[in-house]
């Protein structure tokens, strides 16, 4: 059966994920070494040690994400994160930076290493590079691939593949996007944040609400429309060719209906996005996919509650997995 990999932004969310049936939980330290570096989120060293022990006691694994790109002259902060995650008993480290993979492979040769989605390894040759050079055992595939492409990559791949099945959706190749830092000075690669709340403003106007990021208007909503969060690539813009959601509608990924395709493609693990989300989200989404996987296993129809309340803009997409735009 495919593994279910679940997000945890706090020790409490980690416990909820285990209760709901997660095979593994991914989480990070409460600093700039991980790509969900939001205030009040993530694990202290002590919390990480205790959470890993707790998870192991319940038969679950913990994958520690150290997936930003170390800042020049401060690489030792990231090295310490790697050393501490290893000594806390992490089952795998999820890394994006080549220098950090090199360090980990040399310093901790027995530590299991996963290639982060932030590395944007989008084909078997790139994956083979990570497997051959650093002994990577698994790659998290970017969300730019269709199911047939995932199948082809997995068939040829030098290591296991893990794919996102639910949650926030990058429409740009992950780890290769500076849109956020162009508008705000803060980027996923460097600070572990995208479209950070510190740079968001909402302004009430006579016709509704206007949301901005770093001074750029990202969207406008009518009086009867709910005002969504101004994630840069999900905004409404205008061009000489027309206006609207130029990059992507404000939707979340939901690949529930594609699980059979993923399994037949040889995918090892399914990943749920959302370390920044609360316990209720983690619990509901994990239970949903646990049931869907059980149904897939037994060949029965899944009786699946709607995940709509947990999707961005209350709408979902199959993303690139079904390339209707190709």
């Amino acid at each position: 059966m495919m593994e279910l990999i679940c997000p945890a932004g706090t020790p409490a969310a980690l416990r909820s994920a285990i209760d709901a049936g997660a095979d593994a939980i991914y989480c990070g330290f409460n600093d700039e070494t991980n790509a969900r570096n939001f205030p009040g989120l993530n694990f202290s060293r002590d919390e990480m040690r205790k959470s890993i022990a707790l998870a192991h006691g319940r038969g679950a694994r913990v994958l520690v994400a150290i997936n930003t790109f170390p800042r020049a002259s401060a690489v030792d902060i990231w090295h310490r994160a790697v050393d501490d995650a290893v000594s806390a008993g992490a089952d795998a480290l999820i890394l994006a930076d080549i220098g950090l993979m090199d360090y980990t492979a040399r310093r901790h040769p027995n530590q299991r290493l996963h290639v982060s989605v932030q590395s944007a390894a989008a084909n078997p040759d790139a994956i083979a590079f990570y497997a051959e050079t650093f002994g990577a055992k698994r790659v998290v595939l970017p969300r730019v691939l269709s199911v047939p492409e995932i199948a082809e990559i997995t068939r040829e791949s030098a290591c296991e593949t893990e794919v996102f099945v639910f949650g926030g959706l990058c429409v740009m190749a992950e780890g290769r996007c500076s849109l956020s830092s162009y508008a705000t000075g803060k980027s996923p690669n460097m600070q572990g944040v995208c479209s950070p709340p510190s740079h968001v403003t909402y302004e009430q106007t006579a016709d509704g609400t206007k949301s901005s990021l770093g001074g750029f208007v990202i969207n406008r909503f009518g009086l009867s429309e709910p005002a969504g969060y101004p994630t840069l690539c999900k905004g409404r813009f205008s061009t000489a060719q027309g206006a609207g959601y130029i990059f992507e509608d404000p939707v979340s990924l939901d690949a529930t209906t594609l699980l059979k395709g993923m399994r037949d493609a040889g995918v090892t693990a399914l990943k749920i996005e959302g370390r920044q989300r609360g316990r209720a989200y983690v619990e509901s989404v994990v239970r949903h996919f646990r049931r869907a996987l059980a149904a897939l296993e037994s060949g029965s129809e899944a009786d699946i509650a709607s995940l709509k309340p947990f999707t961005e803009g209350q709408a979902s997409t199959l993303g690139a997995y079904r390339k209707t735009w190709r």
Partner: protein
Amino acid sequence: MQLSLGPVLYNWAPERWRDFYLRIADEAPVDVVSVGEIVCSKRSPFFADHIPAVVERLESAGKQVLLSSLILVSLRRERRQTEELASVEGAMVEVNDLTCLRALAGRPHAIGPFVNIYNEASAAFHAAHGAKRICLPPELPLASVATIAKAIPDVTTEVFAFGRVPLAISARCYHARLHKLAKDNCRFVCEKDPDGLLLNTLEQQDFLTINGVQTLSHTCANLLGEAAILRESKVGSLRLSPQDCDMVEIAKIFRDVLDGRDDVDGGNRRLATAYPGVPFSNGFLWAEPGHLYHRARSGDMQGVAPQIGGV
């Protein structure tokens, strides 16, 4: 300090593309020229026939030529294309995706600005695996640039110094999406925008530029005012990225300022004339939002924090 010319990022008509490089060969004071379609593999066949002649002309003009690889490689065709590029005898390849790195297997190569090198450890890894030139990602601040350049003295460190700044790459084509076309049947509508398509906010703030699967800044990077401090920081090359303007003149302006024939203010005035109507930016280098422009003052050369200002 060298000047290098990055690859043309936009979908120019093939003859225009060829003539652009022939003129660069004859007239532009650049040391290194990167050639090849790196944004969209669908465009490549149009230029393929012209590449040998362009490379030959550039080389006989004394320029070093780099064959630049695709930024995003996912299709079988794109993998094959990348592999073929890496196998070209005697050529120096500019790697824009690690796919290409494996095929090169340690042979000398250049690294383009689309490979994530944010620190000295990653730079050292690439240097140890055959990188001779590294163009750093445009979002890197000066402090990082300086640390990296110092850590790899045998490698030529380059920064993105002129042109709209590449910010993102996607599997989805936004030109096709805007024209309500499928990517596989895109009719190459991006050719209508040889300098990219302007994207505004709903309140008509100029914001970004669309180039097929690529998104760039609306502003034009201009590090003319930082050339001296970059030189002090052991940066060995400045990259000029082709826009729909007189790139020979752009190269001359940079060369003139680097060689002391013109000052920064004079150079900036000439740049604004050569590429009019597009605001400058250098915020990334000063660890600020990338769209901002800090006007260089004489004090900047000693590392004094610059002042935010207009063009």
